[in-house]
């Protein structure tokens, strides 16, 4: 029930916020913030009250099921396990920050803006807890539409093109997934003697043979790797990320990409273990290609947000590499990577947004020497740049290290190339600091001011999170151990 409430609060909060903001924009913003914080507090509070049950190995913590369209075997089934809980936590952490970071950025039509923001969050939260494949698809689509509006209305100059591209790419994948879901539904129905259902746990028992399994698996996989994104389907990402408003980029990089990775771990691997094993080598290869290719392209960018967007392509390559290694340690690394990438890349996008608010440009050739005027921002940028290149003590290091260890046992060659990608990541990461904060100071009439209190709060949360994950990742491992263990045994 708590999961239903959590999503309902976001949906209702969005509507109320839209209505109120027409009278008073400030109240609207506060309502949005309060709604997200309340939704955040619910699973968190629940977790704090029930910690012992989870460590005792109780795999599914919350389970809520109600009939929706019974004649088609569709139920409103929400459930949360350790993996889901971690993703929900990330969703709401970034959710709160995304509301905060658009506090002053959005001046026009802010009510509708926060409505879209909250509905996107609701869709994402729904994706992470939906345990009925129809419902999952439903949320999968629900998060796209408001995101489309966020980019298309409040984006930058080239926003319409970027928004189209985003929507059409993801929708193509989504519809293929829908076909695959339907195929799975009927195959399961026939096998179980007329018991037609979309329920995840029932569908897990489907036995699929040879080519059928491979086709259905591909339907799912394409949807997820478009979101992830995997080279060569990454085309939408740089446009969408660079044109979206700051909060949009934060959510895209921090959360939407994670839904793809989550889908692979939650659906592709357990539903089609054999078919995924068949294509594992290819998936790992494409992951490694993504790591190197993304890093090289990131190095070549002059647009700060595009640069960060390409680093996502590179980092998500690790997810693909780790997920298809089928080793427990690599899968632990993948979950870790989802968290740390969400935090670190999100932080970089927030920084880029702050820079753009001050300098009105994303071109790094027009920046330089900003440390003089903004030492605090420079130092924080340094932290997240270091995180992104995988410095020990910060979370990303742990994630990538675990993935590489796990993958090495499976394919040493690919792992060696992937490690070379880490060197490239040092190149592009240091280039950010060098070009933006070091170097010749640009002469401007009014020097940019350093962080405000609101911005400090945002960055402090993110910094604390990334350092915590780097120093003490054990709670994360404990939470997902049950699920990942099952997965690795398949």
């Amino acid at each position, binding site marked *: 029930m708590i999961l239903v409430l959590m999503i309902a609060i976001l949906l209702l909060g969005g509507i109320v916020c839209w209505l109120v903001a027409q009278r008073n924009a400030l109240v609207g913003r506060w309502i949005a913030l309060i709604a997200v914080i309340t939704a955040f507090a619910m699973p968190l509070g629940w977790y704090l009250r029930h910690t012992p049950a989870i460590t005792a190995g109780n795999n599914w913590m919350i389970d809520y099921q109600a*009939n*929706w*369209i*019974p*004649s*088609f075997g569709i139920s409103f089934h929400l459930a949360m396990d350790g993996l889901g809980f971690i993703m929900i936590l990330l969703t709401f952490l970034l959710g709160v920050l995304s509301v905060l970071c658009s506090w002053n950025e959005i001046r026009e*039509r802010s009510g509708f803006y926060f409505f879209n923001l909250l509905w996107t969050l609701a869709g994402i939260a729904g994706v992470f807890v939906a345990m009925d494949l*129809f419902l999952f*698809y*439903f949320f999968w*689509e*629900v998060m796209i*539409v408001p995101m*489309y*509006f966020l980019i*298309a*209305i409040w984006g930058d100059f080239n926003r*319409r093109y970027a*928004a*189209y591209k985003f*929507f*059409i790419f993801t*929708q*193509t994948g989504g*519809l*293929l997934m*829908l*076909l695959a879901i*339907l*195929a799975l*539904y*009927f195959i399961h129905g026939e096998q179980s003697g007329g018991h037609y259902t979309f329920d995840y746990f029932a569908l897990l028992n489907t036995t699929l043979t040879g080519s059928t399994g491979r086709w259905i698996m591909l339907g799912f996989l394409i949807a997820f790797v478009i979101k992830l994104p995997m080279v060569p389907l990454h085309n939408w990402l740089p446009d969408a990320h660079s044109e979206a408003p700051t909060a949009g980029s934060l959510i895209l990089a921090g959360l939407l990409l994670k839904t793809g990775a989550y889908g692979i771990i939650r659906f592709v691997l357990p539903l089609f273990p054999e078919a995924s094993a068949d294509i594992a080598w290819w998936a790992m290869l494409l992951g490694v290609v993504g790591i190197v290719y993304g890093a090289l392209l990131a190095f070549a960018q002059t647009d700060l947000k595009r640069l960060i967007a390409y680093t996502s392509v590179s980092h998500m390559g690790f997810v693909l590499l780790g997920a298809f290694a089928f080793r427990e340690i690599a899968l632990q690394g993948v979950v870790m990577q989802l968290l740390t990438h969400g935090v670190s890349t999100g932080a970089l996008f927030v920084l880029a947004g702050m820079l753009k608010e001050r300098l009105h440009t994303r071109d790094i050739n027009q920046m330089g020497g900003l440390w003089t005027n903004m030492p605090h921002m420079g130092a924080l940028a340094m932290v997240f740049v270091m995180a992104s290149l995988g410095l020990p003590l910060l979370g990303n290091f742990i994630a990538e290290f675990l993935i590489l260890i796990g993958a090495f046992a499976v394919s040493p060659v690919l792992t060696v190339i992937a490690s070379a990608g880490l060197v490239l990541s040092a190149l592009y990461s240091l280039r950010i600091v060098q070009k933006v904060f070091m170097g010749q100071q640009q002469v401007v009439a009014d020097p940019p001011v350093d962080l405000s209190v609101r911005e400090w709060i945002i960055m402090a949360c993110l910094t604390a999170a990334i350092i915590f994950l780097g120093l003490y990742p054990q709670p994360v491992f404990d939470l997902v151990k049950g699920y990942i263990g099952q997965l690795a045994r398949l």
Partner: protein
Amino acid sequence: MNHLQFLALLPFIVLAMAAVVVILLIAFKQSHTVIQVTGFLMMCGVVFTMWYVRDTLPREIPPLLVVDGMAALFTGLIIFSVLVVGLLSYIYFEEREENPKEYYILLFLATLGSAVLTISRHFISLFIGLELLSVSLYALIAYLRNRNNAVEAGVKYLVLAALSSAFLLFGMALIYMETGSMEFTAIAKAVDTAGSSVLFIMGLGLIVVAIGFKLALVPFHLWAADVYQGAPAPVTAFIATVSKIGVFAVLVRFATAIHLQQNALAVTIFTVIAIACMIVGNVLALMQQNIKRLLAYSSIAHFGYLLVAFLSGDAGVGAGVFYLLAYSITLLSAFGIITLLSTRRRDADELSGYRGLFWRSPLMAAIFTVALLSLAGIPLTAGFPAKFFVLTAGVQEHKWLLAVVLVLTSVIGLFYYLRIISTLFAAPPLIPIKERSLHPFFYFATYTSLVVLMCLLAWIGVYPGFIVENVREFLNI
């Protein structure tokens, strides 16, 4: 005809009376408003009688008609659409036409034609219904005779519809020659015993041509865009919903009777047509700047989707009905917005006129956006479960080719729906506010009904179970 048969026909008799009542009211020089309200009440009367006689169904009225659950369902859908079209017609014609009253006679006659199609089980009643519908439509399309493209559209429809009627008659004649009967079940029996001959197949082909014309299926779709553009907005809504529902209903009944879905040749032909509809409709709509033309092409594509359900046989009928329901509500709300935005001289069919609508009148833009999202089949709107059920039916019958084409072409479709939506949300130009001369009550009524339609779309989108159950129940009658 016994008492029960008369009862079963009662809704259709009330519908026929509606046209007569309107004639009488005109003779007594009643105002537009009186006619409108009376028409509305008569339509409610049809719904009421339908509800009243539902327990006596199904009932055959040999040899021409059969009133069963499916007929009741399709007729209900038709009457529902006409209610909305009638409401839209009032504000539309009150402003533009000094003589709007005869319009309602034609509207109700066309509705009657469409309703007769849903209950016909014989070539004669099929033909009468179809002609009743078409002949009224000739006049309806060209009703605003001062507009050039209205007359052009009317003539175009007249020529092509007459041609397709000729095809239909010839096809019927061939089938009659081969089987010796014009009743669907008798034809089926004759075919079962004697097997289908070349002439029978030819007759069937000619009928398919005629039906294809009426439903604007590719390659018989050439009239659609011009007629949609030229006809007055409420009439376009009528063509897009009521007339197509009726024709589709009779197609389903005919196909079920003669087991069309088991005939390999027919299935191949319909598969080709369906694929062509989905591809051609969506591709031609891509670059349209005129909303009415765009909706014409999109409706071609939507009937392609509907054919996927149709080809899936019995499993598809429920999906097809659901699809038509969602599609009708969606199109009616879209055309409602077009009607409301139309000016005295021309319909609001240029895409550029919609620029920034959201910031000028958020409610209208919201309704239009929901309608477009529903056409694109996005969750939270009725279009999504509709498309989902069609896909389900297709996958269940292993129509993989059709299902994949459906999925890929709806991505193309998404592009032009998004184009309209992003126009709605673009920065607004400076446009003078439209003057309002009518009684505000009718604007209020129209707005309210559009909001109700939008809520219906959302409700069906989120909770389709109720509709699914009811459709299933009716189809089992």
